[in-house]
């Protein structure tokens, strides 16, 4: 880059961020639907209000998206205002946010988790300005826009994305993320993964191999079923190996019994390779499963008896 232009750009940015302090997100403009793998543009409108003197800090921005989007590798973020433009890059792994033991992704995850979504398969991806900026107390409000260009996932999904911004390398206890309205990915592969509305059955992580720990949950409140109000719920599963075998697991030592989470919700977590007693040379392609009780009532994907299905990545 031409040194003169670089210097001028830095000057413009410095002017903006001389006023940096508290950032308020006023609104988000994002599409309500997307095709699988579509590149989408999102704009986050915000105001920067200086609330105290600040010697020098970067602008930090957090983006909550489903993990299968791989947003860290598929997203670019820029900042603009009527006083200048800037670029944001990923916060380097291992950098620690002030006042905490974690980096920014860990900090946002521990405080806000998955936000208003219900399935724990989203991640905070964090970006920062390349340069640090000073701020002085009491100054005019600066309006700005963060522009996100990202790639939607390949799965059918309904999700509410999250946005967080701060002008300091420290989390202010009063700051909260902004969560968008629902975004639906339609025409993708696999069954609908609805992060927003209660689901009878969920499995996370969505992108797993049989060598991951997977977590299955049954929500008896999502729809009225024969198991709603049951005192015990079990997993009735068939695992399909890539060498065309079908393995069923019996309830030895209560291995298939789900743990109660309260309020008609249940969970089971296991390592598939051990749970289905795979040989070292075997791997799984999918699991088909029902939830059941001692009386033999069982709940599947729908009323017709189709089981729930979970597909593993190949590895």
């Amino acid at each position, binding site marked *: 880059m031409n040194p003169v232009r670089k210097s001028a750009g830095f000057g413009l940015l410095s002017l903006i961020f001389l006023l940096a302090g508290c950032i308020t997100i006023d609104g988000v403009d994002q599409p309500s639907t997307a095709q699988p793998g579509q590149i989408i543009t999102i704009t986050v409108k915000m105001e920067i209000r200086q609330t105290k003197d600040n010697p020098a800090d970067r602008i930090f921005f957090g983006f909550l998206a489903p993990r299968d989007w791989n947003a860290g590798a598929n997203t670019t973020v820029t900042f603009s205002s009527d006083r200048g433009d800037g670029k944001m890059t990923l916060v380097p792994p291992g950098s620690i946010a002030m006042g905490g033991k974690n980096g920014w992704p860990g900090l946002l995850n521990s405080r806000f988790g998955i936000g208003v979504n219900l399935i724990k398969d989203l991640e905070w991806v964090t970006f920062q300005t390349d340069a640090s900026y000073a701020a002085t107390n009491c100054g005019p409000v600066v309006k700005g826009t963060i522009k996100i260009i990202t790639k939607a996932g390949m799965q059918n999904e309904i999700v509410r994305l999250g946005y967080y911004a701060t002008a300091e390398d420290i989390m202010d206890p009063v700051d909260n993320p902004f969560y968008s309205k629902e975004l639906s990915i339609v025409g993708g592969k696999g069954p609908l993964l609805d992060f927003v509305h209660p689901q009878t059955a969920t499995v996370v*992580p969505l992108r797993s191999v049989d*060598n*991951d720990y997977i*977590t299955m949950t049954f929500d008896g409140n999502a729809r009225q079923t024969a198991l709603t109000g049951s005192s015990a719920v079990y997993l009735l599963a068939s695992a399909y190996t890539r060498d065309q075998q079908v393995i069923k697991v019996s309830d030895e030592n209560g291995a298939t019994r789900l743990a109660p989470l309260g309020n008609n919700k249940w969970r089971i977590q296991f*390592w598939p390779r051990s749970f289905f007693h795979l040989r070292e040379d075997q791997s799984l392609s999918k699991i088909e499963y029902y939830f059941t009780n001692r009386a033999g009532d069982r709940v599947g994907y729908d009323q017709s008896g189709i089981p729930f299905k979970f597909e593993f990545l190949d*590895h």
Partner: protein
Amino acid sequence: MNYFNLNRKVLAVLLVLLAGACKPEQRAGDEARAAYAGSWTIVKAVRNLDDITSGCDFGRSLITLNADGTYTVDKTAMFIVTKNGDWAVRKQSAGDIIVLKPSAGGPAPAYEMQSDTTGNAGNIIANFTTGSSNTYEYILQKIVLKEKSKP
């Protein structure tokens, strides 16, 4: 043959054997291993920054680091290594690195764990990924065997 010369030769051979049997680096290796030798269990498991400890049965030993430099793993728990092998300690300023080298099945990469330097001294931290993009962090704690109380 001169009796005195023979004794000197025998003594020299013995000294060489003794020196070979107890090299300084081996002694250092033994001492470094002594701090970590024992059976280790998972006290915390985090998947993709989400604590999954309460949903798993981590009651038993995950890995046993033997004093002779070999280790054995529990095959019923998902871990960074699935085969038994050899282990060693590599000292560095930012905490010790525990290196696991699976011995079975031909050439295999070595895996590393790190001593916990964040306030839980004595624990080991294992960070790894599986065949997917999911990330895991295990906090391992040495199992302390309680001595039987004397009557």
